[in-house]
């Protein structure tokens, strides 16, 4: 049962990533990415990471992909705004040629490791309590730095969104 679930989730994850590359319309690409991220969240749940499963669904599928879809609809992109990509499939083949040796190397290295049972356990590994304990003791400095980074990103996006209006106002004042 768990094996079948894992097989289906991994097929959906890889299929969503393929759809992202192949489709020309960014809306279909975004939906492919959404399917892929939800499947990755399912694999997190199979790997006993229940808190990360929720975070992945809330942050990636809920916030980031919704933001991307919102901006795609907000910009109202027409067919002629899309770049035409005449040699897309040639470049995909080139990318595959570049990336396959790296994959081969990593998979060979990983397959040499001793096999272990990766099934679900009954312990509280990956629950919100132990993760919070580790996060607020061993990783406290990194956690604070991440909060500063998020604050800077917030201020930066506000500045980027506001700058254009100021310029237009200044131009109007000069002329």
């Amino acid at each position, binding site marked *: 049962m*768990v*094996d079948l679930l*894992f097989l289906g989730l991994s097929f959906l*994850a*890889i299929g969503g*990533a393929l759809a*992202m*590359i192949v489709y020309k319309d*960014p809306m279909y*690409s*975004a939906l492919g*990415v959404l399917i892929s*991220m939800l499947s*990755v969240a399912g*694999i*997190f749940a199979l*790997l*006993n*990471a229940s*808190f*990360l499963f929720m*975070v*992945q669904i809330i*942050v*990636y599928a809920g916030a*980031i992909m919704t*933001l*991307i879809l919102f*901006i*795609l609809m907000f*910009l109202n992109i027409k067919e002629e*705004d*899309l*770049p035409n*990509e005449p040699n*897309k499939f040639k470049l*995909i083949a080139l*990318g*595959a040629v*570049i*990336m*396959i040796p790296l*994959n081969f190397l990593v*998979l060979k290295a*990983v397959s040499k*490791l001793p*096999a272990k049972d*990766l099934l679900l356990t009954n312990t509280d*590994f990956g629950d919100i309590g132990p*993760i919070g304990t*580790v996060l607020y003791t*061993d990783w406290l400095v*990194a956690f604070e730095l991440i909060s500063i*980074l*998020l604050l800077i*990103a917030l201020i*930066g996006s506000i500045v980027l*969104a506001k*700058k*254009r209006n100021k310029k237009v106002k200044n131009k109007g004042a000069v002329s």
Partner: protein
Amino acid sequence: MISLTSLAFVSMALFTLGAIGVISRKNIFVIYMSIEMMLNGINLFLVTFARYHFNMDPQIITIMVIAIAAAEAAIFLSVIILLFRSKKSLDTDIFTTLTQGEKS
């Protein structure tokens, strides 16, 4: 079926497809989503090894990566909106005016 090699295969496949998307596409939205896909593949790799070694630290690193991805989304999407408003296009080849000078 859930072995270390199959999980590593899935995460490396996601990473590879993201890298191929960055190499092959010209649409700036698809490039951004490919970067997210590469981050997702690496997250899956980290969580796999967290379960393998029964250690919580890789999951913390995954939380950090997700937070950085959220910060990146805010900046990247506002930059995309500015670029689309000034150029009316999503083609990355148009955004080379700073390097070329004459292409505009």
